[in-house]
């Protein structure tokens, strides 16, 4: 399929006797939110680590915008347009929210090997970073040190850093985790609006969010994709209900 942004084929990853990723194939198409669900320990995070380059698969291919990712490092994959957030927010704790986002802006805006110009006088970096903070609704907290932000705000900050990269695909690893109902709702409508700008591979436990957001859902159980399909197909899939949804309800 030509319009697949991300295409994973026959991916395997084994830790000792444990098959964390077992012959996984899936794709993310332009303009869609593809949700990846599955019980704890199903291998969701392992899969996302392999996509972003923190783990090397044993076999199989990951193609992003038609390009084989295997030889690329984490940083190179990010440069290609792979933006991500982590299950536990990953930020620079000693920097202000603004400077965190400025780092991401600087990463796409030319080189980081500039030694003499103070970043805090670099209007272009600051303005671009402020615009992204505005977009995620964090602009009034721009000057707060990231370590002092609340949990939800750190999630927003991480999202801002991912968006500042102007990504061609977002990998979101449980963005709703620990958000509270109000935060989840806000984030859901935010992501809903995002899908037209950038396709998203969404790993999420919050079923309500997944069912309202996803265009397609893949279900991962014991490293294996047992089903992929539209929301209703998955909801009514007997195998899925047994393996996963049944346990939740």
């Amino acid at each position: 399929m030509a319009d697949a942004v991300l295409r994973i084929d026959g991916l395997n990853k084994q830790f000792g006797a444990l098959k964390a990723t077992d012959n996984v194939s899936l794709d993310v198409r332009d303009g869609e939110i593809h949700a990846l669900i599955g019980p704890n320990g199903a291998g969701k995070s392992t899969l996302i680590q392999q996509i972003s380059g923190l783990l090397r698969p044993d076999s199989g291919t990951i193609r992003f915008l038609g390009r084989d990712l295997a030889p690329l490092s984490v940083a190179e994959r990010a440069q290609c347009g792979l933006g991500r957030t982590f299950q536990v927010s990953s930020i620079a704790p000693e920097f202000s929210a603004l400077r965190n986002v400025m780092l991401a802006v600087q990463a796409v805006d030319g080189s980081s090997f500039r030694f003499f110009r103070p970043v805090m006088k670099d209007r272009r970096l600051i303005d671009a970073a402020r615009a992204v903070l505005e977009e995620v609704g964090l602009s009034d907290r721009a000057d707060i040190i990231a370590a002092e932000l609340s949990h939800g705000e750190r999630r927003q900050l991480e999202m801002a850093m991912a968006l500042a990269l102007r990504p061609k695909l977002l990998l979101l690893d449980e963005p709703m985790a620990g958000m509270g109902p109000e935060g989840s709702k806000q984030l859901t409508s935010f992501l809903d609006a995002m899908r037209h700008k950038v396709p998203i591979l969404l790993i999420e436990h919050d079923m309500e969010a997944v069912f309202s957001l996803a265009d397609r859902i893949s279900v991962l159980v014991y490293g294996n994709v047992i089903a992929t399909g539209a929301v209703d197909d998955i909801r009514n899939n007997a195998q899925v209900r047994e393996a996963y949804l049944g346990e939740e309800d």
Partner: protein
Amino acid sequence: MISRESIFNAVLLLALLAAPYIALQMDEPFYVSLATRVAILALAGVGLNIALGFGGMVSFGHAAFFGVGGYVAGILSQHAFNYEPLVTWPFTIEGTNQMLVIWPVALVVCALLALAIGSIALRTSGVYFIMITLAFAQMIYYFAISWPAYGGEDGLSIYVRDTFPGVNTMNPMSFFLICYAVLIVCLVLSMLIRDSRFGAALQVARQNEVRLASTGIAPFRIRLVAFVISAAITGLAGALYADLNRFVSPSSLSWHMSGEIMVFVILGGVGRLFGPVAGAALFIVFEFYLGGVTEHWQLFLGLVLLCVVLFARGGLIGLIAGRARHG
């Protein structure tokens, strides 16, 4: 708005500048050389601070650069003194007693050395990085001991202090001012680096390496370049130190020296711009006054260091100016 840290920094710089003048007024020329030592050791610390403070690279091998910088000065001026070229084939390289030639050579040699050491050591992290940098420094230390051409264990004397255009470097005050000026230039450089795009990436490499990589900036290259800059500055300090003592020996390459440079940075405040200046000054004051009272002064230094690590992570500057602020 002027922060307390800026005021403290200014006071520190002025005090260091005033100290030798006051010493001369009091007819105590020895203190001039003490102040010069502070300036040079602070410079070595400014170098290490870029790697350790900004980048979080705990290099336990910066003596390698300090000592090699010193040997560059020693070797070049010995050859100039004896009128024998360093190399005659394939082309002739003469020695020199010009600081303005010696410094760039020391900078380049230390930068290349750091490039080699860094490209291996930076593939590891944590304790392994500490051990590998230490191992490289010790290799160079033992090499210097066993290389008789330049004095081996006995070290190498610089018979006449190297010269600087228009300045009588044998005048202690003039030499102090040279070292002080170099220190200021490198402090400014270090500030520019800290506040630049490169500095931002370097500090995030310390705070959260995975985040930096996920943002599309490869931490290894950032760290390596910082390590090289850091080493070059420490090497420059080594060249000045050799000229101060008119002597360079393998002890400047030993792990004691690496430890001392690290102590300057930690005492003053890791990652603080003027931390190494405060730390080196404190160290020399300790060494001089406590060393006059008891030869076991390092025991007390150890206690102070312990207190700093346990109770005052920001070092002296942290105590006085509070926590570091990042815009």
